[in-house]
């Protein structure tokens, strides 16, 4: 019989006898968790990349102030790339009675190459009324922003003129993939066919027009295109890819991903511990078997081959199983996520599956092999002399192998150094503290035991009799509980944070360009409708032109977008809740010197331009100069969809520049039509709808939260597995002890009671240690990785020990029920043979 066949036969027999179950379950679990998370994260990454490309409406874009040169077509004629063009410009549009400055976008067939154009046949359409356009406006037709209809006092189907040409308004545009975000006043959108641009006659030499050449295709062709086009661009054209994804969705998902990584890591750690314990047990059980095999004439190399082949087979089969369950789990997480992305969720790359598969084998290699390794060296004399035992690898060697495995796995897997180092350092610190504290606790429990009743005395002396063993158990239990605590708390704070970010009634419309005399009636109307709205911010358009007496040069302008365009300048005396002063003082503490104006600058912008506290900034507001001293630097939560400003002036500083006002408001869906009517009465007010964006973010966040929950439960399974492994590892010893006790006449009640108590005490101590460790790791994680404010978690300290005592006590008593149900004689005989 071949060695493989023999190994398979042996493996089957060992499996049948149940001794491989925990080991195999742990491998399956590790692979499941890693596969599900890696595959999910990979698909999410790839899809997000696509998704963010949707914000370009293409994979690559060439932009310029001039139309894209015809001859550049030669550069792409041999590349399998899709392409389209857009041209964007401001122009007055006319209806019978009104006119309005509109932002016109002409699009060529194919637009958008990535993402979808959402349109409706109902102004301010909602829900079912909205659908994906299956093309672009026909020549002679335009699709417009809903808000343009009330402004021009027209309906769908009416006519609208752009320059010399009349167009039929055939649809409203609900959402463009490449729409700008935020609240710059660009005028309502008019979407027309690219072929119609010329006939309007509005494009004259010198007109401000943005041309875009959109391209999409495979990465290879895109890279080739980039190579070819870059030298041709000159100073009038720019090549653009979209780095990073849209902020709000991106950061929710980024944290979600960090969490999943953490969860995966914890899952692998727990599985690793379970594997190590199970393998240790397996090795102990097999000392006799190997001695027997050797007495029957099997040489050490043969035994080694036999056992390693079995482990390899077990690893491969379990990993394959884990791949299947992991794929299933990931499908659960991802099932409805695809509908949330504009594009279909891309399939995962094979490396994600490979990662999952090899995790199983690496776990096995590093956690299971060390205890099994010395097995073949057992002397065959053991069949005659039972006291002979194997020389185990030293605890230090095994710990070292295990630790390197953990580091390796985490590093490969999370590819996040901060996360890796935080968890590892935390873990090592906990190990040291746990060993020290549990030894101290065991020692001090001595006095307690002496005074207590017989159940307590028995339980405590059981714990003390083998301090090494008890310590190991406490360390294992507390690590498992700690990791679960960390995961649970991170998940809770993450989901809370998302909910906070997107409260039920988050503002879903920006209202701009409110005239000074329109303020009072607007507040009145909104209050009457019971809309929730933010305070009205004054706003003046202006440019930042200089610093400390010097005007910015051309090179300076390249530093930041903020220097190239008109800025929304505002003032307020109350600091918004999501703003944080990181340097300097807010107005309530700031002292103006010689009546100077103060300005508070957003931190990112300050860094880009090199603005420091105390600098004097020079703004140009409609040709008038305004100087202001930098009094504070602020961070702003751009995720919160509320009005935020790069520059906030001291109260009153902008009073002389005839500000308009802006606010944001939550308009319930039922009242959506109100906007139409409202705009007819206040034609100069601009309303920007962001409800679509908010809905999308909410849906994604909900989905990711569900994924996070699901993963949490799977990892929890890992924790339970560790507990089961650790409890069952001590079964043989307990079985022996309790049967001797019973043979000596101890009551069943006393034994069950003391066992239950023993495990409850272990659980209590572990819960306490775990709470301590979890606090430590949470503190590090929250300040380093999730960048959230950290705090003490009193719940951990209460529930950790209580639940620890309860569950471990229960599990222990359950696992050890055999010790009191099996007749002692049978146990003693079995143990002897």
């Amino acid at each position: 019989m071949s060695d493989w066949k023999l190994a398979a036969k042996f493996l089957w027999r060992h499996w049948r006898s149940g001794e491989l179950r925990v080991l195999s379950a742990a491998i399956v679990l590790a692979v499941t968790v890693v596969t599900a998370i890696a595959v999910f994260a990979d698909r999410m990454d790839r899809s997000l990349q696509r998704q963010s490309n949707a914000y370009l409406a293409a994979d690559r874009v060439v932009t310029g102030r001039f139309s894209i040169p015809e001859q550049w077509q030669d550069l792409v004629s041999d590349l399998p790339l899709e392409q389209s063009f857009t041209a964007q410009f401001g122009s007055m549009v006319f209806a019978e009675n009104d006119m309005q400055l509109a932002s016109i976008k002409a699009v060529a067939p194919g637009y958008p190459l990535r993402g979808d154009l959402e349109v409706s046949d109902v102004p301010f359409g909602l829900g079912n009324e909205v659908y994906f356009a299956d093309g672009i406006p026909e020549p002679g037709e335009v699709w417009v922003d809903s808000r343009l209809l009330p402004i021009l006092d027209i309906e769908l189907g009416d006519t609208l003129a752009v320059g010399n040409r009349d167009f039929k308004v055939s649809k409203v545009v609900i959402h463009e993939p490449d729409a700008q975000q935020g609240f710059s006043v660009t005028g309502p959108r008019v979407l027309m066919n690219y072929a119609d641009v010329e006939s309007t006659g509005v494009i004259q030499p010198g007109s401000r027009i943005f041309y875009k050449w959109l391209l999409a295709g495979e990465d290879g062709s895109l890279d080739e295109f980039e190579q070819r086009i870059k030298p041709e661009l000159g100073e009038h054209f720019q090549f653009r890819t979209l780095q990073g994804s849209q902020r709000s969705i991106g950061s929710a998902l980024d944290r979600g991903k960090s969490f999943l990584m953490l969860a995966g890591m914890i899952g692998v750690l727990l599985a690793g511990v379970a594997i190590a314990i199970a393998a240790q047990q397996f090795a102990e059980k097999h000392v006799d078997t190997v001695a027997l095999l050797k007495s029957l004439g099997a040489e050490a190399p043969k035994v080694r081959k036999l056992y390693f082949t079995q482990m390899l087979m077990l690893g491969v089969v379990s990993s394959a199983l884990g791949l299947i369950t992991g794929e299933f789990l990931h499908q659960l997480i991802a099932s409805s996520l695809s509908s949330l992305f504009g594009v279909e969720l891309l399939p995962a790359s094979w490396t994600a599956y490979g990662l999952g598969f090899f995790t199983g084998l690496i776990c096995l290699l590093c956690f299971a092999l060390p205890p099994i390794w010395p097995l073949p060296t057992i002397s065959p004399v053991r069949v005659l002399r039972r006291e002979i035992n194997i020389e185990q690898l030293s605890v230090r060697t095994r710990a070292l192998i295990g630790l390197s495995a953990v580091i390796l796995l985490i590093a490969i897997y999370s590819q996040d150094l901060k996360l890796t180092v935080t968890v590892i350092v935390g873990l090592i610190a906990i190990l040291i503290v746990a060993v020290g504290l549990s030894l101290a606790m065991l020692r001090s429990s001595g006095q307690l035991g002496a005074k207590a009743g017989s159940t307590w005395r028995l339980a405590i002396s059981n714990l003390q009799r083998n301090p090494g063993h008890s310590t190991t158990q406490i360390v294992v239990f507390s690590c498992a509980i700690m990791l679960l605590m960390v995961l649970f708390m991170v998940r809770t704070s993450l989901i809370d944070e998302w909910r906070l970010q997107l409260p039920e009634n988050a503002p879903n419309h920006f209202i701009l360009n409110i005239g000074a005399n329109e303020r009072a009636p607007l507040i009145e109307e909104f209050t009457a409708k019971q809309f929730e709205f933010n305070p009205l911010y004054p706003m003046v358009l202006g440019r930042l032109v200089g610093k400390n007496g010097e005007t910015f040069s051309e090179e300076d302008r390249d530093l930041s977008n903020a220097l190239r365009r008109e800025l929304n300048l505002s003032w307020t005396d109350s600091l918004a809740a999501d703003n944080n002063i990181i340097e300097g003082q807010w107005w309530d503490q700031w002292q103006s010197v010689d009546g100077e104006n103060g300005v508070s600058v957003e931190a990112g912008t300050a860094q880009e331009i090199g603005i420091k506290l105390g600098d004097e900034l020079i703004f140009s507001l409609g040709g008038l100069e305004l100087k202001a001293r930098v009094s504070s630097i602020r961070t702003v939560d751009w995720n919160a969809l509320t009005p935020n400003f790069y520059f906030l002036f001291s109260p009153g500083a902008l009073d002389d520049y005839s500000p308009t006002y802006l606010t944001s408001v939550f308009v319930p869906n039922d009242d959506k039509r109100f906007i139409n009517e409202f705009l007819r009465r206040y034609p100069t007010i601009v309303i920007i709808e962001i409800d679509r964006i908010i809905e999308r973010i909410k849906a994604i966040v909900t989905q990711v939260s569900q994924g996070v929950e699901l993963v949490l439960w799977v990892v929890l399974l890992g924790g339970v597995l560790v507990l089961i492994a650790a409890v069952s590892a001590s079964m043989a010893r307990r079985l022996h002890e309790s049967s001797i006790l019973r043979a000596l006449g101890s009551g069943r009640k006393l034994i069950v009671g003391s066992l239950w108590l023993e495990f409850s005490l272990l659980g209590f101590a572990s819960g306490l240690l775990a709470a301590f460790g979890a606090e430590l790791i949470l503190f590090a994680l929250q300040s380093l990785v999730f960048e959230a404010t950290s705090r003490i978690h009193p719940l951990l300290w209460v529930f950790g020990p209580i639940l620890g005592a309860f569950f471990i006590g229960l599990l222990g008593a359950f696992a050890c029920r055999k010790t009191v149900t099996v007749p002692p004689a049978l146990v003693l005989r079995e143990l002897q043979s």
Partner: protein
Amino acid sequence: MRILKAQQINKTVTTSDGQLTIIENLSLSVEQGTSVAIVGASGSGKSTLLALLAGLDVPTSGVIELNGKDLTAMDEEGRAKVRAESVGFVFQSFQLLPGLSALENVMLPLELHGAPDAEVRARNYLERVGLGHRVAHYPKQLSGGEQQRVAIARAFASEPKVLFADEPTGNLDSVTGATVIELLFDLNREQGTTLILVTHEQRLANRCLRQITIDAGAITSDLSVDEDEIRVELSE
């Protein structure tokens, strides 16, 4: 023909109290097909001697030849090969693998050596020890005597030249022990195996053709019994 020969063997181990000599200057040789009982008080070194003779362990000095091969000149792998070819064991504690059925336990040595007809042979031997109807039972489900019979089937299944038995009845009551011994000697006779039996039971020792008594690791008496005498004894 001599199947087993030990010359001037010593076994010394290092303990916490210093050197301990367990076997001292012991020499003996055993003819093929005979049965030898090694008797002596507990702690006299019987099991140690058995381990040395069977090639499970190596003497500190001296030479041991089994089936014409010098065990002491071999490494553990060489000795394993010799054990595989020519040695079988029966132990006091049976040493059945708890996860394997009776049949699988008997098949174990045959499978290890790659015998193609392992199952047929194993079934055959289980029939011979009277357990043909219990092949699928696990050790847990068998009595002590039955377990030892499975162990005997396993020992004979690989058709060894020498069978070593260390206190094979030590864990059994006297009636069960007697039937197990009966079986052991029957099979021994049928197969012409050499039997080396360690025991402290005189009754059992008396059934062997030769009795060696050891004390403190040295042979104190070595009695051979005429085979005919035993036959007479048996027929009475």
